[in-house]
């Protein structure tokens, strides 16, 4: 007879709970609290409403409705939030997860299948969580003759490099970017250059035939498509006269650069597909030829990390396309122009006698405005918006455009077959580089003809 717990006794159960509670309390007292105090000693704590925020004050304010919003706002504008949550890792990982879901369902619909269906009842919504749990709980198997330090380091380095790429992407106006570099585009090129190294090192360290063939293919492909990738963006740099990604977005407030350089956009998109190893350029992971290419020997969460890194990379490339060619966060305002008074002072609601007892602010705004008194003048018309309105509007436009580009990256997977390696190298070295130079000459022609110049229409 098989039962789940054959020797279940309430006494053993309670003893287990009390044992666990005892050890947790002991460890927290001896190690956890000193650790928290050491961390707090070195942290820069914010000043809210003239009071230095301590841990005790934070706990107190969490349950005080009037202090919750300043507390959350100070968290919202901290560096940690930027790196971990909004323009950084969390936001990108969320979009990456959505991308995986959409990819599965959309490809299935294109090929008249149903795709993931059972987990989560509605269109297999929870399949992704299930796969994540499966990957975490699986055993990590390392080949016996693998080069262990490199084999362990490769997935972590891959995710780290992808996260560094994500950190350079500006998402919304007002400095919503993790690292706002003056040479942002060059930093992007430098980060992209690390991917082939990690790929070839992981392929070599597995000490197996299929990964090595896949790694060599990946190296050929990435190195040869990096050149048209860089050259296709130089036209925009010539026209804007800056390498800062935020300034490139701001230069497109009137029109996106894809209008003037569609050739550059096409070259960049093709090179992007090759850098991302997507079909039709997925020779490094060609599952019908070389099991899974350079990912063959990865198992468990190591495979999961590589997949996470490659989808973060996909998001970052799509976002880069949006920033350079489609105008980033620029777009018409969704918000109706509200009265200055309404936002700054709120609407007083009187009681039955006519005395104002309650003030209602515009919804959502007190949370997203860094400083309610800080006003930003929009150029279109004489309308004024707060930084919170601009933030929400910018994020909505940015996400819409990025999702559209991601859709076009996913689409070829259901449509095109894989191409041969000689055709791939031919496309990269002959056609794309030539087209990229044509694009640069178009940009130079526009500058010298006096039509366009650094900063927009002259």
């Amino acid at each position, binding site marked *: 007879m098989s039962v789940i717990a054959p020797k279940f006794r309430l006494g053993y159960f309670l003893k287990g709970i009390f044992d666990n509670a005892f050890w947790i309390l002991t460890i927290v007292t001896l190690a956890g609290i000193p650790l928290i105090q050491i961390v707090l000693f070195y942290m820069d704590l914010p000043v809210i409403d003239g009071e230095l925020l301590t841990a005790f004050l934070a706990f107190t304010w969490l349950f005080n409705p009037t202090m919750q919003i300043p507390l959350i706002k100070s968290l919202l504008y901290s560096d940690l939030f930027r790196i971990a949550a909004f323009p950084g890792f969390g936001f990108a990982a969320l979009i990456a997860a959505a991308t995986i879901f959409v990819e599965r369902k959309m490809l299935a619909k294109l090929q008249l299948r149903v795709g993931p269906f059972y987990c989560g009842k509605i269109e297999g919504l929870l399949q992704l969580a299930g796969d994540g749990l499966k990957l975490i709980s699986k055993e990590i198997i390392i080949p016996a003759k693998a080069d262990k330090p490199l084999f362990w380091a490769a997935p972590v380095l891959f995710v780290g490099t992808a996260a560094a790429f994500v950190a350079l992407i500006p998402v919304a106006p007002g400095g919503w970017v993790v690292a706002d570099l003056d*040479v942002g585009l*060059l930093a992007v090129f*430098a980060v*992209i250059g690390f991917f082939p190294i990690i790929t070839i090192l992981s392929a070599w360290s597995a000490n197996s035939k299929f990964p090595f063939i896949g790694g060599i293919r990946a190296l050929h492909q990435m190195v040869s498509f990096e050149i048209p990738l860089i050259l296709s963006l130089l036209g925009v740099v010539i026209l804007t006269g800056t390498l800062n990604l935020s300034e490139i977005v701001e230069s497109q407030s009137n029109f996106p650069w894809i209008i003037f350089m569609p050739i550059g956009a096409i070259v960049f998109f093709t090179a992007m597909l090759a850098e991302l190893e997507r079909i039709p350029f997925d020779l490094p992971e060609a599952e019908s030829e070389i099991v899974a290419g350079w990912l063959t020997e990865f198992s468990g969460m190591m495979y999961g990390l590589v997949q996470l890194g490659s989808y973060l990379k996909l998001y970052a490339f799509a976002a880069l396309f949006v920033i350079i060619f489609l105008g980033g966060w620029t777009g018409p305002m969704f918000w109706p122009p509200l009265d200055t008074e309404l936002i700054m002072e709120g609407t007083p609601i009187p009681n039955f006698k006519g005395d104002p007892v309650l003030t209602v602010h515009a919804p959502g705004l007190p949370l997203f405005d860094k400083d309610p008194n800080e006003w930003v003048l929009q150029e279109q018309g004489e309308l004024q918006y707060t930084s919170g309105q601009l933030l929400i509007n910018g994020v909505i436009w940015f996400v819409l455009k990025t999702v559209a580009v991601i859709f076009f990256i996913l689409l070829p997977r259901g449509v095109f077959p894989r191409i041969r390696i000689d055709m791939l190298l031919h496309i990269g070295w002959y056609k794309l580089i030539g087209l990229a130079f044509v694009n640069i000459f178009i940009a130079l022609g526009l500058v010298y003809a006096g039509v366009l110049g650094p900063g927009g229409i002259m």
Partner: protein
Amino acid sequence: MADALFLAISVLTIGSAIAALEMRSLVYGSIALMGTLGGVAGFYVMLDSPFVAMFQLAVYVGSIAVLILFTVMLVKRELIFKKIEDPKRKFAGIGLMLIVILALGAIIMDSGIKSISTDSDPVDFREIGGDFLTYYWPALVLMALILAGSVMGALVLARREDTVENEQRTD
């Protein structure tokens, strides 16, 4: 803070340079070489020239180190290299290095530079580009011609007439 950073980058650069020379495994040696080149990029960042630092990363770590790694992986090292263990050479090399370092240090001490002011603005890369396109344009044209010539020469050398393969190709 800056001193600690400088020390850390120096240790990284010099340590990985020594490792690149001394490691038995060629692949690890080239990884150590990447560490050296990345450390040099760190020096450029500390010297307020992120433009040069990013090019150092993109060109040296991203391209040249990859080529070295690629070559190393395709070579069977037992067939080509013989181990030469010669302590005399090693000591001679260390001695030469010490002499060079002492000479350079003496020159720097002799030049009268005692301190470096860190308040001055970094050179804007737009100014460098402007100078190249206006005053120094002959140098730019010369560099472009030399590069174009070397690329064309490489293409001519690498060109190979595979008539059979060309016939088999359908595209």
